[in-house]
């Protein structure tokens, strides 16, 4: 069921793009851009909900509640929920689009793995996923998996003469672009806002661990997937920029963030 509904359409779409361009690397880039555009309404909803939640933290009522019930966590949570209801904001509204995107991301990942087909069993599965009325499998195979210095089916390493090891350039780019895409949507602390240590800690954790996690995936998985991650990040950064609320100033870490005068970055 999962194969028929999610993976097979993705594989056919990716291979259809491949049949037009003749290179799997280029096809992955175009495929990623196309799928991100298809998911754009969901992404926009997520960004807007997230921004609404960020605006809420500057709301006087919200700040008063934080101060008033700072020693009573249960009551604080209850009052916060009441405020969310009153203002028509749902803390989960920005999570739902993420949740919906999950199966799509997993499906994309599996489609890419199967499309690269580096073993007979993978190739057998790939051929069975191709719609015969849509694409001619035998004319497409073998796929041209070479893109720049990379093979989309292999782990990416750039070998430079004189160096005894390969540089995982794509993994490095994945870490950098993931860091930027998470940082630019994190608003700087509001002046006078109560220090919500747990929340700030969580944000910082996410900003550090997510790029590292994505970088580790790109380091260990095939370069086709790493290319997908990089393209996704770049498209995501562009989408955030279009919404007009990005904090470019966050990209460079401040040495002492607690004492920094809050300039809301270069808000676009």
């Amino acid at each position, binding site marked *: 069921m999962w194969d028929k509904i999610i993976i097979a359409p993705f594989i056919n779409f990716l291979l259809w793009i491949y049949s037009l361009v003749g290179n799997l690397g280029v096809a992955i880039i175009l495929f990623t851009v196309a799928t991100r555009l298809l998911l754009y309404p969901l992404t926009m909803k997520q960004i807007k909900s997230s921004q609404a*939640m960020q605006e809420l933290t500057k709301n006087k009522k919200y700040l008063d509640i934080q101060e008033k019930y700072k020693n009573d966590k249960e009551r604080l949570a209850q009052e916060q929920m009441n405020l969310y209801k009153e203002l028509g904001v749902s803390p989960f509204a920005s*999570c739902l689009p993420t949740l919906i995107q999950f199966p799509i991301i*997993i499906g994309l990942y599996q489609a890419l793995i199967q499309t690269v087909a580096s073993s007979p*069993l993978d190739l057998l599965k790939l051929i069975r996923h191709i719609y015969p009325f849509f694409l001619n499998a035998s004319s497409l195979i073998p796929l041209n998996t070479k893109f720049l210095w990379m093979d989309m089916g292999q782990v990416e390493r750039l070998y430079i003469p004189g160096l005894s090891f390969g540089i995982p350039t794509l993994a490095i780019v994945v870490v950098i672009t993931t860091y930027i895409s998470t940082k630019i949507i994190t608003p700087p602390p509001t002046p006078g806002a109560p220090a919500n240590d747990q929340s700030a800690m*969580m944000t910082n954790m996410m900003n550090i661990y997510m790029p590292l996690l994505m970088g580790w995936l790109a380091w*260990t998985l*095939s370069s086709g997937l790493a290319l997908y991650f990089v393209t996704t990040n770049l498209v995501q950064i562009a989408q955030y920029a279009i919404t007009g609320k990005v904090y470019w100033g966050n990209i460079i870490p401040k040495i002492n963030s607690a004492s920094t005068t809050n300039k809301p970055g270069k808000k676009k």
Partner: protein
Amino acid sequence: MKNKKIFVVISILLLGIMLTSCSSNATATNSWGGVSATETDVYVTNATSILSLKADSGNVTWTYPEKAAATRLFYAAPVVAGDQVIVGDYKGLLVSLGIRDGKELWTFDGAKGHYVYSPLITTDKIIAQNADGHIYALDFSGNLQWTFTAGNPFWATPVTDGTTIYAPCLDHFLYAISLADGKLVWKTDLTGSLVASPLLSADNSTLYIGSLDKSVVAINTTDGSIGWTYKADSGIWSTPVLAEDQLFVGDESGKVLILKAADGSLVKPVDVKSPIIGTGVIMKDSVIFGDEAGEVVSVKKDGSHVIISTLSGNLYSNLVVNNDQLYVHTTSGTKVLVALNSDGNEIWNYSTSSK
């Protein structure tokens, strides 16, 4: 706000776990293994290791490597060359093992792709085709003699008539290459990827090969010209089997096509109903095939067929017969390797729980 962040962090971790669990190694490779046999021993790949088993009992005599690693995969059947067992892994390392103890004798690390099927052993060379698009000719000490480059993956084992090797490639071409120096003799476009070895006729004049372009083709070995083509209903993953003057070819639609070797005309299609991926073998007066449903099917010359055994898992690997014993390697089955007699009765089996 706090709840949302916790949710996002947990989601990211879950996504990471899901993505990595889909892939135990760099390329998420998974495939079917291979088996080969001599009079006394059987050699089998079991994904992360190679095993030598006694042919009469199935008892393990040695395993390689001593410590299996999930990142080092073996799917190509090990092949015997004198007192060595030659096997390639999915990281591009070709290894020679001592036939008696499985100790490493030498390695060749010149390839950068998978070794998908076993190398060809000739009188003085090891011809190792690799998915990096090269064929490497080595002597029996592992020294490189020559390299042939096609640029696209070679999966299937080439065949040779003693002077020329015939190598099928995924790029749709069948390459004829001089065994002495690796120079191209001719190449023929068969319009579909070639994932199985060709069959060389006894007089070395004709090659029979199937392709993923749903065709079975007879090729003249002198110049690569096509003698005849038979168009099947689905892709051909296996090598044709020649029994007297008839070819038995399994296809992915679940049919065994019986063709006249002389002109490629269809004698009879035999519907076994489950895809045939591995190459069959002649055993007594029948041609035996394994199918995707786990059935071992015996097909007679007149097209009558009978299921002689049903095993758990898929039978994708090439069947091997030796000393009236049929060796069946299963994929995703409870038993890795099963030895059957010609009636389909089990003689012994090796499973991962076997000692």
